[in-house]
């Protein structure tokens, strides 16, 4: 049965009504999920939707149940997120776990902050984008019920995150990685504690946002969301490796970003702690790449992933080695 037929059957059962699925196409964006865009018509109305199916072999191993809980909780907050329509966690409908969401209007541009628009416009856009990150950190996760689905790390967010990524590494490691052993040893020896516990996006970037008329219409890709130290997101967005996505040289650099974030959240930034999270961000990127390698070696991937050796030089710089 084709994926179009599978989607038609799924929606027909959910709606108890005749449904037609048209304009089905798979986007080329994203390695962590298959994204299928389509129009579904029922009871005389047409609805643009997106189905996101787990790939046979991807670059991330995440919990779909948690993602659903986050998406549902966000509907009652200031954070713009896609509306979840239906979820099939067991993978009975499309062969693998899948979610169907409303297709939010807007376009995605990973490098929008360094495009050819005037600097003043890009700076306004930077504020709008990173104010949404502050909104995420201000979500009242206890009140929204997220505490029932996400583990609260208390003041041990860094230790918990490190343990998580070490576990993920052990699952996918195909060969010895002495450089990672060296960096992980530094991370273990320098684990910080945290005061605040907030919702953390885990992969906040312009490439995970939709913009419509320069407004953020949706923050996407909540599969790595969890409760933790907001410094984790600050380390992720100020990782030098991703500067061209997140920063505008000379105008919107880490200090500007931290100042704006502090004004919006009322929280202070511990720059030393951000640095620890930057190192973990690169360990995380390495594990993501190695997950891709693992999928490729298992013949579950349609892309060739290779060992991310160049990341090691950056991590050595970051730990002062």
């Amino acid at each position, binding site marked *: 049965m084709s994926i179009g037929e599978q989607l038609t059957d799924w929606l027909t059962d959910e709606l108890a009504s005749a449904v037609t699925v048209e304009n089905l196409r*798979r986007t080329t964006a994203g390695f962590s999920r298959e994204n299928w865009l389509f129009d579904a018509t029922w009871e005389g109305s047409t609805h643009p939707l997106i189905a996101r199916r787990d790939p046979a072999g991807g670059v991330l191993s995440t919990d779909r149940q948690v993602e659903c809980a986050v998406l549902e909780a966000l509907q009652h907050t200031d954070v713009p997120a896609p509306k979840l329509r239906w979820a099939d966690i067991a993978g009975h409908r499309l062969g693998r776990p899948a979610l169907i969401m409303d297709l939010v209007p807007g376009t995605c541009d990973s490098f929008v902050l360094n495009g050819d628009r005037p600097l003043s416009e890009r700076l306004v856009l930077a504020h709008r984008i990173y104010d949404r990150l502050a909104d995420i950190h201000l979500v009242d996760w206890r009140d929204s019920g997220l505490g029932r689905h996400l583990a609260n790390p208390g003041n041990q967010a860094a230790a918990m995150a490190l343990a998580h990524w070490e576990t993920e590494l052990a699952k996918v490691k195909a060969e010895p990685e002495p450089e990672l052993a060296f960096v992980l040893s530094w991370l273990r020896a320098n684990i910080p504690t945290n005061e605040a516990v907030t919702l953390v996006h885990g992969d906040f970037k312009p490439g995970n946002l939709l913009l419509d008329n320069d407004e953020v219409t949706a923050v996407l890709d909540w599969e790595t969301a969890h409760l933790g130290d907001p410094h984790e997101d600050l380390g992720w967005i100020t990782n030098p490796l991703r500067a061209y996505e997140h920063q505008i040289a000379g105008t919107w650099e880490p200090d500007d970003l931290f100042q704006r974030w502090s004004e919006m959240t009322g929280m202070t930034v511990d720059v030393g702690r951000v640095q620890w999270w930057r190192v973990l961000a690169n360990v995380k990127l390495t594990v993501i790449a190695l997950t891709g390698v693992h999928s490729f070696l298992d013949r579950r991937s349609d892309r060739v992933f290779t060992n991310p050796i160049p990341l090691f030089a950056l991590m050595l710089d970051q730990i002062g080695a």
Partner: protein
Amino acid sequence: MRPTVSEQLEGVSAILTGIVADHLDDDYTRDVLLGAANIVLLLSRTWHGIPEFLRWDSAATAAILTMVGQTPPPPADALDIPALEKHHRHVRDCLEKSMPLIIADEAARAATVRHFRERVARFAFLAHKDN
């Protein structure tokens, strides 16, 4: 012997991008094909440098292991690529397991960091050099 391995790989990449890709209507499939063709092209330019990289990396790693009193496995036959790869994995495994000893020894730690950096530089050179 013509066509050389590099010429064959480069030719296959050109067939995929210049002939096959034009006949694919589906954007996703085309994207996957072009990605695969690019890897084949990259291999055409780098494959012959890999044995030397493995030999150098293994020898330098073995020297670090010796600094912390570990006995590295004997080198492999330089013309036997699978044996070179196996030996390379073995010495890298020894290095990973010796990390607590290395971190505790200032000279070994410094040598290891130097080696890690040179390894990145040599890998980058290998990945970018033209045939």
